[in-house]
């Protein structure tokens, strides 16, 4: 009995020690300098930006091995909040900031189209934006109404607060509300997965994430692609934003400039995004940085 009690107490103490230890680690990660020459950045926010940020971070860490970049999800709203509160060095958002969220330093790193997708077995090729709106508003419920088979449409949307949903509401729905009867999935990936298995479904995801499992359709006769967005013909796209509390400096600035550099932009373009320079021209933020870092680094 006594032995068991002691064992229990020991376990308890160990658990506390573990918890305290974990806490310690977390605190360390928050700061930029972690000692031993390693430096780290935390990026948090939009799940749409996350895979691209991870890719960029990976390439950056190959180039600068003594830097650690942590990329976390959480959603656009969370990204905006963590930038405001300074929890993350860089917050990410896949939608424009609302008026009450302004005040952050916004750096568009790329643009992303929103593609409406259906199952590859679905013969549908084109939808007008009014029809699309009617489907998502719950006014068109059956594929028959669109000249297809007599089967209910499985309409898939994203959860409230998602950047992709925010952009979809802004660009497609305008003032209309998305029907509460729609299926709600919590990531681009699960929307794509569902559409790829359900032949009667329709959904919307980042253009960069469209693959062979699903079929993107044209809206108002314009097929979504990097080309049509560059030509300003496909109008359903949104910015991917990096957000910082103040004007970025130091390592954060260096990473941002890497992302905006031709090399970083090339990586993003290869992943299916639209480089920011096409719409904005080169940003002035990094010109000075490039000169100074050119001397120091290397």
């Amino acid at each position, binding site marked *: 009995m006594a032995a068991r*009690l002691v064992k229990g*107490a020991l376990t*308890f103490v160990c658990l506390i020690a573990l918890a305290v230890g974990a806490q310690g680690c977390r605190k360390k990660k928050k700061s930029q300098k972690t000692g031993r020459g390693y430096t780290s950045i935390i990026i948090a926010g939009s799940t749409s930006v996350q895979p691209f940020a991870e890719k960029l971070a990976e390439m950056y860490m190959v180039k600068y091995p003594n830097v650690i970049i942590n990329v976390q*999800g*959480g*959603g*656009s*709203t*969370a990204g905006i*909040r963590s930038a405001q509160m300074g929890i993350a060095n860089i917050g990410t958002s896949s939608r424009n900031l609302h008026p009450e969220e302004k005040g952050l330093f916004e750096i568009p790193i790329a643009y992303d189209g929103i593609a409406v997708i259906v199952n590859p077995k679905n013969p549908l090729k084109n939808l007008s934006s009014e029809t699309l709106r009617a489907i998502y508003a719950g006014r068109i419920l059956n594929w028959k109404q669109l000249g297809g088979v007599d089967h*209910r449409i*499985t309409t898939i949307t994203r*959860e*409230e*607060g*998602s950047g992709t949903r925010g952009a979809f509401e802004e660009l497609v729905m305008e003032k209309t*509300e998305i029907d*509460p*009867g*729609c*299926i*709600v*999935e*919590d990531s681009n990936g*699960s929307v794509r*997965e*569902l559409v790829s*298995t*359900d032949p*009667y*479904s329709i959904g919307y995801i980042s253009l960069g994430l469209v693959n062979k499992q699903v079929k993107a359709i044209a809206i108002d006769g314009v097929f979504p692609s990097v080309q049509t967005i560059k030509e300003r013909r496909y109008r359903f796209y949104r910015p991917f934003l990096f957000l910082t509390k103040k004007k970025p400096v130091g390592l954060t600035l260096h990473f941002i400039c890497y992302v905006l550099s031709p090399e970083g932009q090339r990586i993003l373009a290869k992943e299916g995004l639209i480089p920011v320079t096409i719409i904005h021209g080169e940003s002035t933020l990094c010109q000075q940085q490039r000169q100074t870092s050119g001397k120091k680094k290397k």
Partner: protein
Amino acid sequence: MPATAADIRKKEKIIQRVFLIIAFSSLFSLFLIALFIFIEGFPMIMKVGLKDFLLSTRWSPTRGHYGIFAMIVSSFWVTIGALLFGGPLGLMCSIFLVEFASARWRAIIKPALELLAGIPSVVYGFLGVVYLVPLVRDYLGGPGLSLLTSCIILGIMILPTVISISVDALVAVPNSYREAAFSLGGTRWQTTYMVTVHAAKSGIITALVLGMGRAVGETMAVIMISGNALKIPTSILDPIRTMTSNIALEMGYASGMHRQALFATGIVLFFFVMALNTIATLFARRKAIK
């Protein structure tokens, strides 16, 4: 110097105190959780109004609508449904284990059940999405992500809870009851359903109620297989959103009133689970008095 009796008693006291404090830490965290949920969620309920919060079906936090009625109904149905699938299955399994199984069977089934309890819920959800959802969609219709799918998966997930507690209840039935029934000429099955199950009734009900508590609290698997639509389901093939999945789904994005509304959903859930646990305790106590 040898330890005196008083010394030993003193030591004993200290150790007792230490463990009392440790025991209270779990109570304390329960208290903190409750306090925190209420502080975060209650002002929001006051602002929106209890009626508009509980009885409105319109949930659209970015537009200022915070009605969770559809989710309460969905949580209710999914819990009942899980019980319909998991309850009989679990009960029959525990009857088999206690009354009919040989020691060898028991040695196989028991650890398997423990393993079932140890499978993470995300795995259940994944299996549901990959195998069960297409089955339901292809053979029964609807989007597949539905009340029915959730009930089946949750029914399996509550099995370990239901079985382990009802096994305890059945084992606790004194052997003299069974012997008396046998001596009256009862077969094994007659004895089981006329005597043993009757005697263990309160324990079995406790098991079912605690299973319901498990079902109503499950989150991850439900998010993956329920479709999360914000409507009151009109058929078992309709997608649903439960209170727990609502919280988990929107937590990452929520701020301000929206966040408070999620905490307020937590309050409702808290009462839901508390009510279930109270019922379970009442039944457990009735047995003790007997």
